[in-house]
């Protein structure tokens, strides 16, 4: 195995991502968990760069590290949290789930291990954004437009969901 700069970068980013994930599982305060996850998201953006997907990396930072994390923080702020929540829930379930996930990971790992992927030179890193733009506006135009519809629906839906009850409550009072 050759320690190229690329490899070192990968190792570092991967480590950060995994540590972020583990912290998410083990931290006690909800806010801390979310913050831990920001590291993971950013690290993943780095991984994308390594995979010659600069545009996706940018989107990743914008949406995950930016938008989604902020949304989650708002969610946390708008609700009450008795933070030492981890307690009674079934130990057995956790154990079984852990074993199951371990088995699953192992099985998939065997698949990955035996999976020999050929590598051919690509031009993905050249004008990545241009390529994506061309593809999006030609081949994937319909899914793209549908996505916009989806986002619109999600926007309207969330507003209604979040708002509707308030009105009712107001009616009650």
């Amino acid at each position, binding site marked *: 195995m050759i320690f190229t700069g690329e490899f070192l970068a990968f190792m570092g980013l991967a480590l950060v991502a995994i540590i972020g994930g583990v912290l998410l599982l083990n931290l006690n305060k909800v806010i801390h968990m979310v913050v831990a996850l920001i590291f993971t998201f950013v690290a993943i953006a780095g991984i994308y760069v390594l995979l010659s997907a600069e545009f996706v990396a940018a989107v990743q930072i914008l949406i995950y590290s930016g938008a989604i994390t902020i949304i989650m923080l708002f969610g946390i702020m708008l609700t009450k949290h008795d933070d030492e929540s981890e307690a009674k829930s079934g130990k057995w*379930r956790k154990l079984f789930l852990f074993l*199951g996930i371990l088995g*699953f990971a192992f*099985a998939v790992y*065997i698949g990955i291990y035996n999976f020999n992927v050929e590598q051919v030179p690509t031009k993905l890193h050249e004008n990545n954004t241009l390529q994506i733009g061309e593809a999006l506006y030609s081949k994937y135009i319909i899914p793209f437009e549908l996505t916009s519809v989806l986002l619109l629906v999600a926007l309207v839906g969330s507003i209604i969901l979040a708002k509707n009850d308030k009105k009712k409550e107001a009616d009650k009072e």
Partner: protein
Amino acid sequence: MEFVHEGCQAPCSIKGIVIMMENAWLIPLFPLLSFLILLLFGKRLKEASAYVGILFTLASLVYSILVLFERFSEPTYGTNFEWLTIGDLHLTAGFEVNQLNALMLVIVSLVSFLVHTYSKGYMQGDERFPVFYAYLGLFTFAMLGLVISPNLLQTYIFWELVGVGSFLLIGFYFYKEEARAAAKKAFIMTRIGDVGLFIGMILLFWQTKSFEYKEIFAAVDAGEISTSMITLTAILIFIGAVGKSGQFPLHTWLPDAMEGPTPVSALIHAATMVAAGVYLVASLFPLFAASKTALLTIAVIGAFTAIFAASIGLVQTDIKRVLAYSTVSQLGYMMLALGSAGYVAGVFHLMTHAFFKALLFLAAGSVIHAVHTQNIEEMGGLWKKLKLTGPLFLIGTLAISGVPLFSGFFSKDEILAAAWEGGHPILFLLALIAAFMTAFYMFRLFFMVFTGEARGSQKHVHESPANMTYPMILLGVLAIIAGYVNTPWFGTFLGDWLVDGNEALAQHGHIEGPVWIMIAATVVSLAGIYLAYLMYYKRSLARNWLSGTGDTLHTIVLNKYYVDEFYQLTVLAATTAISYFLRFIDVFLVEGLVKGVVGIVQGLGRAGSKLQSGQVQTYGAVAFIGLALLVVIFAFTGGYLR
């Protein structure tokens, strides 16, 4: 439908002109038409229905007579078409006109026609008048169809239809509980017999691969069927005849069937349907003749029924029941004749009996019509009031008693001769005793009804209308002269004709008995009449000189030897017991099974519903663990479960 002419042997195609017989299938069709028309339009036709029925049966009658006359000069005619294909088995339907069939056609259509005419008067005013005629049409159709059937299957089909016709007519007064019970009993009792016929027929089929009489007889002749099989099938078929003809173990329905309207009793339970059993045995005679055991069985059952029913007839007080038991007894005679290989004797008596018994029933109907009761204790002295019915009834009584010169005398004589010649001296003796009893109870009936003082409340006693008396007169004439077609004195035309051209039957033709038999028969019947005369007319002999009312013997006989009660206690009770036992199984075992199944399903359901905590995470966890398990197994085994 393609008609296959196979019954037509060489001579007939040369002689050619068999127009009447060729279309003999029309004969049963006329009454069927009558049935259908009345069924559909009866309500509108009302009383006019009678004319429809009468006209169609008249057509049948005329046609039957023409066919009979044609049959005198022409050989047997028959034709078939394919009715049902079962793979390579081809079952046919068709018709055949042989001597026996032709004779039966005339008897049946004649009696039916007369009864149709008679009923016009008798049933006057009944609100279901058209229905009655419709039923009569159905019955006549079935009976005529039965008579011309060329194969066992078709015979069986019409055999059952005849049973239904009889069932419907017995239950005609459906609102009477007795009628309902009687109809049900008649149907089920005859069905028991029919099953015998059914089994016998099918067994025979697998022996010969055919239902055709001709082929069966050919196979019997050629010795293709083992003797034991012949005996078995013959006896099974005879069971069918036992059911229909009211022979001993299955006779109980026939007296009860008297709940039907009286013309029906005359038609079905005297002249035609009950004779179907005898007819069946007669038309299958070559089969029976091939087995000594079968013949003996028939003879013994016939003789026993004859004396058994006669003894019950001695004490009955219902005019129709007396006649019913006498019918059973006379049918026993016919069976005895056939069982003693007296083919001609049996058929001959069948014919004469049809006439005089129909006469008796119609006359009895006329009496009932006049006095509105069936109990002979409440009659008496009707001779002067019923100027026509009385003498006619007397003619019938004389004929059935076997008084010389009347038709019954000749046929009964021939049966006695057959029994004697057939080597059954004991059966002969039984028959003789039965003849004595017959004479006695018939005259007892006659004296009680027509002579002496009027008992009971008879107010407006009047003779029946013309359309009731004319049929009786015609039958009266026949009851006198029908015997002369086959007598030892004037030639045995009927006997010779019946067995003509049929080798299997030739040896069972007319039987010339010793003269002493004739004398003995005469003496016996005269003795019976004299005894009845002493007891019921002169009353010089007390009615209870032998056995008073209330005596054990009298009670037993009056209750018909408790056969009904016996069945009630054994067969019916057993059936009910089995049914309840099975219900026990159904309720406890099968339902238990059900409960078990339900329990398991419910248990599974409960266990399942515990998993339904409503928490998405649990669901997800369970689903994922399952998936993981599958994936792991998949990974380790490297593919499908092998």
